[in-house]
């Protein structure tokens, strides 16, 4: 069980027997009412987002989940396919609800996979990741003010705004929550 006041982004709640991951949480005090946590939670099986309000003192059921390190292998027409680094077992995570994850998945990289009752239900994207720039237009030095940025496309399809000196083929560190460029990575 988890107290309403302890629910945070990333908490996994069991709502009507389905695991839901909290994607947004705010505390609300309605006029002349008690304090409540209002959460937006995504059904990890079908991607539907629901709004729930829980009194901060009340407890609700949370889902007991396990995190296992798995290597991303490839995707087929409907699933992302991962392999358990220790047992070599393969897991399929269907696209619905995880469509935007494709921009952060790089073959051969290890990710933490969230398991609920033996089923792989979510992929934890690291907070910062290194990407290779696949497409970048060349800007002529001096044609813009300092601090100017340009959009580049990474190998995964992720679009990031970077300083003008970044070239195609270079590696960059990106904050995956905001998709903001952090720094150039020397290899």
């Amino acid at each position, binding site marked *: 069980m988890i107290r309403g006041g302890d629910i945070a982004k990333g908490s996994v709640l069991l709502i009507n027997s389905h695991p839901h991951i909290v994607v947004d949480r705010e505390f609300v005090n309605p006029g*002349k009412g008690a304090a409540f946590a209002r959460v937006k939670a995504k059904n990890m099986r079908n991607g539907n987002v629901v709004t729930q*309000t829980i009194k901060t003192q009340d407890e609700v059921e949370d889902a007991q989940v396990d995190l296992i390190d798995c290597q991303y292998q490839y995707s087929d027409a409907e699933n992302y396919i991962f392999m358990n680094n220790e047992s070599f077992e393969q897991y399929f995570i269907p696209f619905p609800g995880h469509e935007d994850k494709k921009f952060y998945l790089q073959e051969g990289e290890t990710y933490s996979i969230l398991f609920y009752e033996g089923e792989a239900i979510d992929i934890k994207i690291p907070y910062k990741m290194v990407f290779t720039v696949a497409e970048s237009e060349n800007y002529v030095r001096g044609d813009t003010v300092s601090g100017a940025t340009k959009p580049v496309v990474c190998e995964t399809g992720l679009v990031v705004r970077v300083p003008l000196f970044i070239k195609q083929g270079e590696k960059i560190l990106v904050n995956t929550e905001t998709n903001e460029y952090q720094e150039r990575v020397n290899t």
Partner: protein
Amino acid sequence: MDTRLLEERSRILTETRAFFLGRGYLETDTPALAPALIPESCLEVFRTEYDNPFLGRMDLWLVPSPEVWMKPLIARLRRSVFQVCKCFRNSESLGRLHNPEFTMLEYYTVGADSGDSRQLTEELFRRCAGPDTPAWARPPFRRMTMAEAFRELAGLDLEALQDRGALVEAGRGKGLLVPLEASWEDAFNQVFLSLVEPSLPADAPLVLERYPAQIECLAADIPGTPWKDRWELYAGGMELCNCYTEASDPGAVRASFERESERKRTARVPHRVDAGYPDLFSGFPPCSGVAMGFDRFVLALTGERDLSRLLPYPFADILAENEGALRRP
């Protein structure tokens, strides 16, 4: 903090004062410290202490609203009054719309009801709007009753759901996590906050009227209905003000005091209640009062939705910079 917003705040405050003074309201300045408060189980308060080396010590509380002082003054003066002052609410979460100390604009109109207050508030918005005021904060106000909002946005007939068990069941039927033992008020808030409030029309300021009588407050009952003569104003998803046709029946006020005092027994910060306070309502003139979060009012009129843009020292920053002084539970 944005300097432009501070300038706007100053302009709006000046306009607000001129607006009420021009209509003959008396500006009052009541104490921030009180020896007893109106019991309100929905909020927590700040306690402090008067310390006189010769006389002794006395518990005092910072007012969560100036109502506790303004109402006795209205009973005495029998005229319309307004006040802009700091108020204090403890234990609330910190966020873009909450700060434990905030500025309240409170105005009471003698001889008026909540409909008159709605028109007055609309005129105040018109007077204070600036060139940057977005459409969602400009009058005319839209109106909707709580029953209409529940019917249209949650598909529930609130008037028929006055029984606790029935409302709990209806909320659960909508897939909401309403505990079986939830009170009527908590179940109402869970449905309201999950299904109704996030979908309220937001293209113009919205007056949500006729609140359930089962939610305790000092608004007058609408006879023969399960509603109180109370409205709240929403703009841009923010709750800006709360208005009553004030209760004037000392018996009803006393009953409300007793119920709320009982519920206050589990408060984190208990406070004294003046048992004689309800008596002043025997001489209370017909009156309607509005309590408006002035900082939120400024945010709405400037098209903003985050207090940290307006406040020079948001409490969340004070807390973060003085983390060492925090005694964790």
